[in-house]
Each structure stands twice: as C-alpha cells, then as structure tokens.
C-alpha cells in the first residue's frame, strides 16, 4: 500500500512516502501530494523516501512531476531518506539526494 503523509512546519512541507511506489501506487498519491503543496505554498518541499520498501521508475516520474509543481509555486524540492535501491533508480535520472535539510 503506497502512502503519503505530511508534516508542515513553517515554510517546509515534508512528504513522508511509504510502501511500494510503482505505477499503480504512484497514481494514487500524486494528486494528494500536489493538493497539499498548493494548499501549503511552502518555500521548501522534502520528499522523504525512508519508508519506501520498493520503487521502480514510477518514482522518478513522481519526483520530476512534483519538481514542476514546486517550480510553479517557487518552492525548492529536496529528496531525502533514499536507500541503496531507491538511490539506484533515482540516479538513473540524475536525481541527487540530501541527508538533512534545515530551514
């Protein structure tokens, strides 16, 4: 079961992703993430992958499309909590990740 949970603090919105991110699961959470970004209008959005147990290239699509949404809202997007397997996928698209983000 793919899940997205949110933590909003000041200008930062953290999206905690968990479960399996595939074509089926990504389709279920993307609108939810976008509506939270548009509602919060944060300066920084962090997509945290630490709860993700499986991810295929749908995860790349999920990040790249959110980066467009963030650009439209003048927010910066960061990717965090990436393990070896999710990192292997994201690196194919040249997506770099961060360890910590303090705003």
């Amino acid at each position: 079961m793919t899940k997205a949970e949110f933590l909003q603090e000041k200008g930062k919105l953290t999206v905690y992703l968990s479960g399996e991110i595939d074509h089926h699961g990504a389709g279920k959470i993307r609108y939810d993430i976008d509506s939270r970004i548009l509602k919060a209008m944060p300066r920084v959005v962090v997509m945290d992958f630490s709860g993700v147990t499986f991810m295929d290239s749908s995860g790349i699509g999920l990040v790249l499309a959110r980066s467009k949404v963030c650009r439209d809202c003048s927010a910066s997007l960061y990717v965090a909590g990436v393990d070896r397997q999710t990192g292997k996928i994201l690196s194919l698209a040249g997506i770099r990740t961060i360890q910590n983000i303090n705003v």
Partner: protein
Amino acid sequence: MSKENYYKLSFPSRSVNESFARMTIASFCMQFDPTIEQINDIKTAVSEAVTNCVVHAYPDSIGTIYITATIKNGVLKITVKDKGIGIPDISRAMEPMFTTDSGSERAGLGFAVMQAFMDKVKVYSTPGKGTRVVMTKTIEQG
C-alpha cells in the same frame, strides 16, 4: 549442482497486478539464494516490463499479460509477453526519456531500468500483434 525450474503465469493487465507480478518472481527466485540486491533488481525489471504492458500494450482495454520464468545453469530468463498494440520503432522506444505517454507521469525510463538491472534485455514486437521482452540475469554460479 544444477537446479532447473520454471513457472508460467498469465493475468489481466490491471495495474494492481504489477505488485503481484513482482511478488511471484521474487518467490520463484528465493530457492536459488539470491542476494537482496539481486531480488530487488529482478523485481524492479519485472515491474517495468509489466507496467509497459499495462500502460502501452493495452492502453484502452484490459488484455492478458504472460510471464514465463526459467532458471537453468544459474541463469534466470524472464519473458514478459502481451498481445497488445505492439511497438512500431523498438530502438526509439528504448531510448532513455522517450515516452509516448504524455498525459501521465511516465519518465520514459522503463527500458533503461530493465537494462541497468538485468544482464541482457531483448525486445521483439510486431505492431498489431504484441510485444515480447526477454531478460536474463545470472543469479548463481552454474
């Protein structure tokens, strides 16, 4: 010691079956003591191939996806087949970032992932008849 085994599976092209296809290939591979990384690589490649069938082979209908996996001499061979619309230009379809699916959020990296995670990927397709993706990976010393 050389173990040989195989399975054949067919299921409708519903997106909920993407995870079913991953779980079955993972279960099949467990008997050969793969590493966690090998299992994840194989699951990811199968997920991409099955997603291609769901999204591209049968864009407006539900069709059947066929998976055959065989293991022989330590080499795993997975065939993912559909009887969908086919691919007119295979080399173009396999180019990274190329996608015909502009409406959704596909990154166009499905074949790139299969190639990165498996040893060999071959694609056979006839427009109007369907597509067959054959992937191999060595998972034990035979």
